[in-house]
């Protein structure tokens, strides 16, 4: 014991490489790692594993990729699956086309030099992001309700009254409307992160471009934008993961059936229905696990693309 301690002491002094008695490690790392592995890593791996099995009548048997083949090709399953997947990509596209550009514009405006009330604007615009998605869903459901008529009256006031519709109730517009609601709530995140990056750009570079005769648009396009591209890429991947994991908004506003006629179904709600069942269809743990595995693969591919493709291109930009 004594010998070990002495060894530890000397070795740490000599090589700056500490090899303490491992009980420290167990004490410091053990509890956190245990909870993380048992309730996050193991369940995820177990889910991937479970997706290769089929449990019927309480007996589980190995079926290989059969669950996935069923999901993608079987008539009763594939339609719902592809519908949810395509909807999810539409949902993501709405975020990319609206949330990030609006966030970028707000961030650029907020970072304009000597702007008064900047922190007040920032705090207030970020406010909806703090609320629960469920609450936000209900708030907008009330605001867009034809019964209450707030939105309808507002549109009439600005002369667009004839365009009002029960957007959340129509098959063609429900998903887009929910996308808008989600963008409204989360626009604060790109705004805040891009704003932080803009603040970190050294004044020298901006001054240099001004001296060289660049106007403010040129300064933005040639100097600032390339520097904030990594942040935009990061926001995009965060949005991607969040969107392919979204559930609460659809469940709160449209229920687990993601009506009308499944037009607002996302992977998250599809996963929930598959696992717990609905109406005539019984819930299935192994099919649920298969859907979760596909969601996992989609997210993994997205993150990989981000790491290997986009990130590399951006680094070239920076140097």
């Amino acid at each position: 014991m004594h010998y070990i301690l002495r060894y530890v002491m000397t070795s740490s002094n000599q090589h700056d490489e500490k090899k303490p008695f491992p009980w420290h490690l167990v004490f410091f790392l053990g509890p956190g790692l245990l909870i993380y592995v048992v309730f996050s890593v193991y369940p995820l791996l177990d889910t991937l594993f479970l997706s290769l099995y089929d449990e019927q009548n309480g007996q589980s048997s190995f079926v290989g990729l059969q669950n996935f083949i069923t999901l993608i090709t079987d008539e009763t399953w594939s339609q719902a699956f592809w519908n949810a997947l395509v909807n999810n990509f539409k949902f993501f596209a709405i975020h990319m086309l609206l949330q990030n550009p609006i966030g970028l514009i707000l961030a650029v405006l907020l970072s304009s030099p000597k702007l008064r009330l900047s922190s007040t604007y920032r705090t207030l615009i970020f406010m909806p992001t703090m609320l629960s998605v469920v609450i936000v869903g209900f708030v907008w459901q009330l605001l867009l309700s034809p019964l209450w008529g707030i939105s309808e009256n507002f549109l009439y006031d600005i002369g667009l009254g004839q365009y009002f519709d029960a957007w959340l109730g129509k098959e063609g517009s429900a998903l887009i409307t929910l996308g808008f609601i989600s963008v409204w709530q989360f626009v604060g995140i790109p705004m805040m992160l891009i704003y932080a990056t803009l603040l970190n750009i050294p004044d020298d570079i901006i001054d240099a471009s001004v001296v060289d005769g660049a106007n403010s648009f040129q300064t933005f396009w040639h100097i600032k934008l390339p520097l904030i591209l990594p942040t935009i890429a990061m926001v995009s991947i965060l949005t991607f993961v969040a969107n392919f994991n979204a559930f609460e908004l659809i469940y709160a506003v449209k229920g687990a059936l993601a009506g009308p006629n499944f037009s607002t179904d996302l992977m998250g709600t599809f996963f929930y229905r598959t696992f717990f069942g609905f109406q005539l269809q019984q819930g299935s743990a192994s099919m649920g696990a298969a859907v979760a595995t596909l969601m996992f693969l989609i997210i993994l591919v997205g993150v990989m693309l981000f790491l290997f493709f986009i990130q590399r291109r951006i680094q070239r930009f920076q140097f």
Partner: protein
Amino acid sequence: MNLINRFMPSNGYRQLPKSVTVHAVLLAYTVIALFPILVVVINSFKERRAIFRDPLGLPTQDSFTLIGFEQVLQRSDFGLYSWNSLVVTIIAVGLVLLLGAMAAWALTEYKFKGNLFITFLFAMGIMIPIRLGTVSILGLMVNLNLVNTLTALVLVYIAQGLPLAVYILSEFVRTIPKELTEAARCDSVSEYKIFFCIILPLLKPAMATVAVFTMIPIWNDLWFPLILAPGESTRTITLGVQQFVGQYVTDWNSVLSALTMAIVPVLILYTIFSRQLIRGLTSGAVK
């Protein structure tokens, strides 16, 4: 809106037109961000007739009522739901901070076999959402006999919050000068004492940031309360509101009041902690 902008003080005569546009756009967006929330809060204090006749008006002496709030409190156990949310959030965040700081310290300070692998394992958790493992988590909780307990939620939320906490806190541990711990070791201070008496106090500012980031998703979560603890006695506030609004959807007073009761505490907490949160977001801790 234009009027307000015209009277906004601005810097210098030449910048006036540009700064007016900037303020106009930011103010317009601030209105877009706040208007929906304000409409709901304002109308929760009005009589049903006033809600429909004049949805944008403030409650007057005639139309002011608290009937919605009374009904919410009568029909559901809002106090209990809030208490459940509070208990789960505080215990989970507290343990994420403590266990996260300990793990971050171990992973950055000590070199050992498997260090890189464990660091990678935690890093994966930042990107891969824990709810993808729900099927097995539910099975696990059934086996552990933890379904419909707050313990189940706390355990899952600790697992959910740890990856980001370990990542952010590791970054901070790295900025602590080596001399500090070296000096302590020369005085043969134990590793435990080094961590709890020297490192932990230094991590406080970073822990405040982590606390805010961990707290929000836990408080707002619907997924795990819905699946792991849907029972009446373990319902969290988000689930409670979701169920209540679903049940009394036609009673506008109750729905508006229930939403207001869920919104207002969060907004109060947000105004208190907003500086902390925004500093955390903009300091680059999450980049």
